[in-house]
């Protein structure tokens, strides 16, 4: 954290452990570290289990592990810090890529089975996309941003468009849905509209310039840009083209009841959050701060981010880092001079199709009932107190 935002108190890190690590200094000229580097022992940013359930649980299953967004710089999440989530917990399978196959079958003219080497010979794409869990919900009990927002991450994904593979197989008339299946112990499966498959789903074998990490689906996964994270099936082994929604275990758990609503929202709404200063951090005193954050939307590119440093009375455009990519985290910043008085910091995202990130009150008012329903893309308020401490301001 220190290198990231000097002056802003680090996230709670065990000083003792830093010291211990420093005493066992790595030899950066050792063959191991010449061959494959590692970060400094002084950099201690870590993922942590979120959502109140231990990971691993008593069966050894891993559930939800959040990304330390408070330490995030730029738009790309380092692969080792990418959030990790599964519906009901999962073991990470050990898959030999030489043995791995992807089958495409069902309502297609030509059923096909591919090796990894064959998949890598197809024309490829490399695109920046966020993946966010639909359960990435903020509430008043959360103290830090890893708890309130840690289940979103963004990586540069490389692979072949699913469209390319489906065209190769030839989708038959009426094949309006696909089901995608992984090969972990529960063979996690999701139903997706073929319209999305023909649009921008990537059958990815690489992230951030290297093969997928095992926790991210090594050797193969789909990335479903902008859709709820559970749909980006990992350890992909099979895609079946079908004529209907299949109501898999993953699907039924996401159904909603209210007929005025949609059964599944699929698309993540326009969303942003200030990562620094954020809950649990400390401002050492009044003066200049660069307010930093991330913005994203399942609806396309981020077109604008606004920041308020006075609890929403006035809003100003934030600076966007680089050119926003569709369905990707976009880093933003805003220059702020703190006068030492208590205030609330807010950010809101406006995307290219005109969706605007709402306050929690606006969501409640729209649906006519308290709380945030569906995927939570509400504005996150951070309260800065006179002593410089920063707190979640959701009541």
């Amino acid at each position, binding site marked *: 954290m220190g290198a990231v935002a000097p002056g802003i108190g680090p996230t709670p890190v065990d000083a003792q452990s830093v010291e211990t690590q420093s005493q066992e200094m790595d030899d950066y000229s050792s063959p191991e570290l010449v061959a494959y580097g590692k970060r400094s022992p002084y950099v201690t940013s870590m993922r942590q289990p979120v959502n109140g359930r231990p990971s691993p649980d008593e*069966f050894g299953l891993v559930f939800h592990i959040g990304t330390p967004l408070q330490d995030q710089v730029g738009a790309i999440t380092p692969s080792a810090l990418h959030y990790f989530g599964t519906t009901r917990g999962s073991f990470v399978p050990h898959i030999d890529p030489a043995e791995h196959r992807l*089958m495409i*079958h069902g309502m297609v003219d*030509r*059923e*096909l*089975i591919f090796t990894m080497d*064959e*998949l890598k*010979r197809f024309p490829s794409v490399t695109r920046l996309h966020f993946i966010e869990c639909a359960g990435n919900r903020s509430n008043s009990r959360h103290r830090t941003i890893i708890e309130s927002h840690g289940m979103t991450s963004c990586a540069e994904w490389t692979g072949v468009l699913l*469209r390319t593979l*489906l*065209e*190769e197989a*030839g*989708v038959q*008339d009426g094949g*309006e849905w696909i089901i995608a*299946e992984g090969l972990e*112990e*529960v*063979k996690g499966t999701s139903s997706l*509209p*073929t*319209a*999305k498959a023909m649009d921008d789903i990537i059958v990815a074998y690489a992230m951030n310039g290297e093969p997928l990490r095992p926790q991210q689906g090594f050797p193969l996964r789909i990335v479903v840009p902008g859709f709820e994270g559970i749909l980006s099936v990992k350890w992909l*082994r*099979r895609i*079946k083209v079908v004529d*209907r*929604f*299949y*109501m898999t*275990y993953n699907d*039924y*758990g996401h*159904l909603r*009841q209210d*007929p005025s*609503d*949609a*059964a*599944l929202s*699929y*698309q*993540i*709404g326009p969303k942003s959050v200030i990562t620094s200063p954020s809950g649990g951090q400390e401002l050492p005193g009044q003066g200049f701060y660069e307010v930093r954050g991330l913005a994203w939307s*399942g*609806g*396309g590119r981020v077109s604008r981010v606004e920041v308020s440093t006075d609890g929403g009375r006035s809003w100003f455009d934030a600076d966007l880092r680089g050119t926003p990519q569709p369905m990707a985290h976009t880093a933003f910043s805003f220059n702020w001079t703190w006068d030492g008085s208590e205030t609330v910091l807010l950010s809101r995202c406006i995307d290219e*199709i*005109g*969706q*605007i*990130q*709402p306050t929690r009150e*606006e*969501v409640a008012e*729209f649906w006519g009932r308290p709380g945030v329903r569906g995927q939570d*893309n509400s504005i996150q308020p951070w309260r800065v107190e006179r002593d410089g401490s920063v707190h979640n301001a959701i009541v």
Partner: protein
Amino acid sequence: MRSFKLLPALVLVGASSVAAQSPTFGLGRTPAPEEVLAWDISISPTGEELPEGSGTAVDGALVYRRSCARCHGAEGVDGRAPRLVKSERGSDEDPWAYGRVLPIRSPYATTVWDYINRGMPLNREGTLTADQVYAITALLLYWNDLVAEDEVMNRETLPLVEMPNADTWAPLPDWAPGQPRWPGYPY
């Protein structure tokens, strides 16, 4: 079986033009029919893919004791693994209030069969026979007041079990690229 909530016919310009295309890259091979059969474990809501076999809740009680009870509890309630039974047997509580209790919350009984078959028992997935999966499915449906204790579940009867949520969920979204999250929702 009640009617499905199918997506209103999606006009897929891409997909219909695709159907006429022939392969371009010549990569991959055609799987043998047995390979497809072995891999294809997905069961649709109408259960066409269900295998032969059958079982009742009475049969299921025996299988459950041996294969499930250690983690899910003797009655499907007090185990370390997720609960399998609604809060009070015999009650007609709103199934949406139960949380994610699979055998009562899913709109189709086939989802229950599919999940047990693909994912259970933990670390021994795939070891249950079709008869055993039918039997455990029958037991869970019986515990949740959805079938009688001696009702035979097989590929014909299972898809016909009327689940409490069969018709009580919101319509599927009609998704197209570039559209908002929900029609009429500004956020």
